[in-house]
């Protein structure tokens, strides 16, 4: 039986806006995360991902509703003190001192968390993450990838049971991204990972929630999303004569089996609900100077676009 470690109940967060008014960053969020699960939170910038992570990691309080970690209500300060040693938070490459060396950063955090045998652990983790040789240098001289690795070292050194990783791989080159994905997959911890990079979440997470404008749009397992993806048929094509592009768009919009139309520079990207509509679609396209018709393999981005 799955053991729920993190649960939220109608979790809501509002921010006061300058000049009056309120911004509802989270609207009655209900999620649960099981022990040992990697749970993905996907959404565009401003969806509320960081706000949710900040509440769960006890940095800020919700406006209404509540969340529990190991059954402890995080609104109570007595509980917060019990929860803090069990959680690790990584907000991108933040939370490390750029004006100190890497080793001074790590020593500082192992001391305040009272980590035993810290020298050995620092050597082991930094070697695994490939920054051992950079530790004596000031963090300000690190590349973004190295800063992210150091930030991840900081979180791993404190040996948390739950990891909150907010945009942990943003702005990295493909090789570093691949390396860090391998490391995260090998952690065997309960992880809440947020990203707006769909392919990262797709690779890492067992269950995925789509968050948009503070609302959960859908929560499902990766398998079900893959099933859902197989139902999406995406077709991309160009049109020679730009004057006829407007007419074609009008006609496409009138076809009820087309679920989504995206206007591109030289043509369109459309989604259709079933392959049985191919002949009808091709007849339609045949009336226009269309070229380069190709089927595109759908990704979670497409699901997100469809759902939102």
């Amino acid at each position, binding site marked *: 039986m799955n053991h729920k470690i993190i649960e939220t109940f109608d979790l809501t967060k509002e921010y006061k806006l300058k000049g009056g008014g309120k911004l509802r960053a989270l609207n009655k969020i209900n999620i649960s995360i099981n022990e040992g699960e990697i749970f993905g939170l996907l959404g565009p910038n401003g969806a509320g991902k960081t706000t949710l992570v*900040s509440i769960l*990691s*006890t*940095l*800020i*309080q919700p406006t209404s509703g509540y969340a529990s970690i190991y059954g402890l209500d995080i609104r109570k*300060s007595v509980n917060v*003190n019990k929860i*803090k*040693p069990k*959680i690790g*938070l990584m*907000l991108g490459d*933040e*939370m*490390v*001192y*750029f*004006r*100190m060396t890497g080793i*001074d950063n790590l020593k*500082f*955090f192992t*001391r*305040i*968390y*009272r980590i035993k045998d810290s020298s050995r652990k620092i050597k082991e983790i930094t070697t695994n993450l490939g920054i051992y040789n950079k530790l004596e240098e000031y963090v300000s001289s690190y590349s973004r990838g190295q800063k992210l690795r150091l930030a991840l070292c*900081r979180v791993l050194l404190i040996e948390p049971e739950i990891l909150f990783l907010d945009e942990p791989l943003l702005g990295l080159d493909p090789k570093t991204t691949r390396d860090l994905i391998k490391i995260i997959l090998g952690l065997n911890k309960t992880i809440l990972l947020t990203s707006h990079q769909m392919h990262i979440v797709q690779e890492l997470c067992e269950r995925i929630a789509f968050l948009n404008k503070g609302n959960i749009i859908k929560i499902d397992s990766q398998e079900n999303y893959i099933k859902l993806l197989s139902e999406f048929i995406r077709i991309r094509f160009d049109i020679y004569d730009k004057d006829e592009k407007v007419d074609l768009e009008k006609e496409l919009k009138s076809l009820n089996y087309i679920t989504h139309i995206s206007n591109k520079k030289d043509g369109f990207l459309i989604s259709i609900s079933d392959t049985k509509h191919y002949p009808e679609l091709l007849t339609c396209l045949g009336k226009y100077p269309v070229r380069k018709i190709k089927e595109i393999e759908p990704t979670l981005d497409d699901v997100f676009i469809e759902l939102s």
Partner: protein
Amino acid sequence: MFTRKSLFTNFIQIYSLTIKDLKLKLRYKLEFIIEFVSPLTALFFPWIIFNRLFNLENNVFQTYYSKDNFLLFLLLAYCVTSLLFLLWHYKDLFYDEKTWKTLNAIIIAPVSKFNILMGYLLSGLISKLLPLLFIIALCYLLFPIPILTLILVVIILLCITLTFAGMGFILGVLEIVNEDISASLAVGISFISLISCLYFPITIFPDEIHFLIKFNPLYYYFDLLRLVWWSGINSSEALEYITINHILVVVFFTISTPLFASYFFLRIYNRYGTSGY
């Protein structure tokens, strides 16, 4: 309850915060050295004024300030001015940590707010310790007093340190939560410092505002500091001016300010979180 283990944990956490802060300070060493010299400049004008006034009339202030002791009081004012930085210390530190985006790492760690207050306090004190010790030694050479009196002076300086730290911590949390409130409060604290009679005796101010000064706890701290040192030289005159209010105010605010500041930090931060990015 405090166990041996929890005391050790608190000690290590305070030590770590202190070392971390000193390392950040020592990244640029010249700034660190300039801080030693700057309080001396604050003494220059009061010294010129007092020198001129006491040459005209020795009992110009109608109080225990005289030609014989004004230099001592100015040197003691230097010690307090060296500690005055604590009022702005946390504000500056929290502002830095907020903009460096490292504050969350401290907030999320299992560290009590009191340990944060103490860790940053020690780092600040260590950075000011050398000039402070130098001036106290100079006072001792120029105006020698019994060792017990000197210990009492050091205790009063510690009381001032804790109170300033508490006040600074309150400003610090407001810097995290709302910089507008923090800036307004900073003006208020500057006013309180101005009417605390650090460089001048109370009699220099018009009689009408004496009652206002006597509402200011800092006045009692500074007055007691001067009077305790002076009691080691001219006890009959000094004891004439020490009142029960001096003792009560200093003891009460020394204990309550840091405790209230820790509580205030916890309540305000939990309620409002970080803002202002």
